[in-house]
């Protein structure tokens, strides 16, 4: 998958090759255009330039074929308070169902698998309106998984999730990638984003860096777009972004800092 998005009010000259079978995270400050970029990748907003999905221009894909190949999880969108959890997850199967045909056994199996994967299966009879924010997010995630698409685009998938379920989500994405699926996520939590294979750093509508999550250059680019108000450290084998409370002061926990960040 690759995107080349021309000038539009939010994004400028984006060239973003997204490697198949990898997890790419998009990070950047508020208002950098992360969600807009993800929407452009999903073909959900008009833009100049072209997006390629699995070697074929996105605009050339038939509507339903595209919906089967590319699953989208939006941010703060749901309002389906009166649908049951099961019915919501079943909506992910719409691209697979002939118009007006009842759900097939494969549809039921996919929905069950998705709901179990997000630990939402036990409340499948409850309505979405009766769930907490985090529970609701897990149902919406299951809806996106139920599509069983080759490419998953997720905008802030960790919103409202507690740490154990954030860890579940990480494992889930790792499993998807191991199956050969491609995942692109927008994450405002930098530490989570650094768990990805690749990180695209976005600032003011431009991709300022795109590289491996473990690459020191990527870390420097991330620190730079956040005005060096964060510092990236290695903690227990994982990359952590910690806030720097005083930009001019030395980074906290200097002993943990394997890659000394470049101050202004």
């Amino acid at each position, binding site marked *: 998958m690759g995107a080349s998005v021309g000038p539009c009010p939010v994004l400028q000259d984006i060239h973003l090759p997204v490697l198949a079978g990898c997890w790419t995270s998009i990070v950047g400050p508020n208002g950098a255009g992360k969600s807009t970029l993800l929407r452009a990748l999903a073909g959900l907003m008009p833009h100049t330039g072209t997006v390629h999905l699995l070697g074929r221009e996105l605009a050339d894909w038939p509507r339903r074929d595209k*919906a*089967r190949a590319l699953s*989208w999880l939006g941010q703060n*969108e749901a309002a389906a308070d*009166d649908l*049951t959890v099961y019915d919501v997850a079943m909506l992910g199967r*719409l691209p697979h169902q002939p118009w*007006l045909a009842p759900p097939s056994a494969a549809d039921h199996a996919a929905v069950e698998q998705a709901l179990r994967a997000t630990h939402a299966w036990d409340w*499948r009879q409850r309505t979405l309106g009766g769930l907490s924010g985090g529970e609701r997010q897990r149902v919406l995630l299951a809806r996106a998984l139920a599509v069983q698409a080759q490419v998953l685009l997720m905008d802030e998938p960790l919103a409202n999730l507690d740490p154990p379920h954030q860890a579940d989500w990480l494992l889930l994405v790792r499993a998807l990638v191991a199956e050969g699926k491609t995942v692109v996520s927008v994450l405002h939590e930098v530490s989570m984003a650094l768990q990805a294979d690749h990180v695209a750093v976005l600032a003011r509508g431009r991709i300022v860096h795109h590289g491996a999550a473990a690459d020191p250059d990527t870390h420097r680019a991330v620190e730079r777009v956040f005005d060096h108000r964060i510092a990236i450290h290695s903690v227990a084998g994982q990359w952590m972004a910690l806030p720097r409370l005083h930009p001019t002061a030395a980074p906290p926990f200097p002993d943990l800092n394997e890659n000394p960040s470049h101050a202004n």
Partner: protein
Amino acid sequence: MSESAMPSAARRAAAHAGIATARQRAALLLLGLIVLSVLLAGLGASVGSTGFDSVLRLADDPLAARIVWDIRLPRSLGAWLAGALLGLAGAVAQGLFRNPLADPFLLGSASGASLGVALALALFGVAPATVWLVKLGLTGAAFAGAVLAVLLTLQLARGVQHTLRLLLAGVIVGVVLGAVKDLITLAAPDIIPSMQGFNLGSAGFIGWASCVLMAAAWCVCALAAWVFSRALDGLSLGEATAASLGLPLAPMRLALVAVLALATGTAVAQTGLIAFVGLAAPHLVRSMAKVTHAWLVLLASLMGGVLLMGADVLARWVIAPQELPVGVLTAVLGGGYLLWLMHRRTGQGSVL
């Protein structure tokens, strides 16, 4: 027995048991509404100035037969059909605009129909000599007004792409057409009593021809709404998600707006403005069963029919031999019930 040890068929059956109960509730509600409809139709045939006698003497008294067959039955059935159209339109409007406060008159059809009737009355007068012709003209004018108002709303909103723009345009069209109607009534004060009758709504003028017309419109609208019911489900997750699921949003919106215009236009033309049925029916259904739109449009439609037919029977009975305007009753009863529902729900920590 652990879950993995269960045979897969049994597991699948257990898995769908919860879903089955939701469906069973919906089926039960469907059955209840059908039974209630039949009972109310029987009641509607029995209530009137000559009372139940007419039903008893149906076989040997031609006058009684005429009263029941040509007046009471079409009126009761007509009230049911008009309510069914409004309930259907209400469910479609609330799904399409993803707003539980949406009602079928949202796109300006009510004020458009009012204006149509006011114009027809002002132009052709309220001549009693040509009653049926006037009535036919008024029905046509109301329908044309409703549909033209929706078209005007679509034009102002520049299509159906933006739901919020569509809503705003509907409100603007409603206000402006209402003002024009007020101007007309000011210029021709002799139409005020007729306008009042129209604004309060009544099932009293419905004959068999109107019933056939409404039944045909209901069939078309219900079929279209059912065809797009899954798209409405998808839309409830938001426009972007619906689009990502490969749903044809633009044709779907257009078809559903057409359903709204046809259903409300037909109902309003036959019965005048009847408040609250379209808003309340989907809420009542949702408070009893949590269902997908395929069920919701059908159940809300039946619920609307039951509500309006019940209200019509009540309107004829409360101060018999005089009649209450049915629109007043639906507003009072529907409003009261919604208020109760709202307080009950807010007490449980969720809002309507």
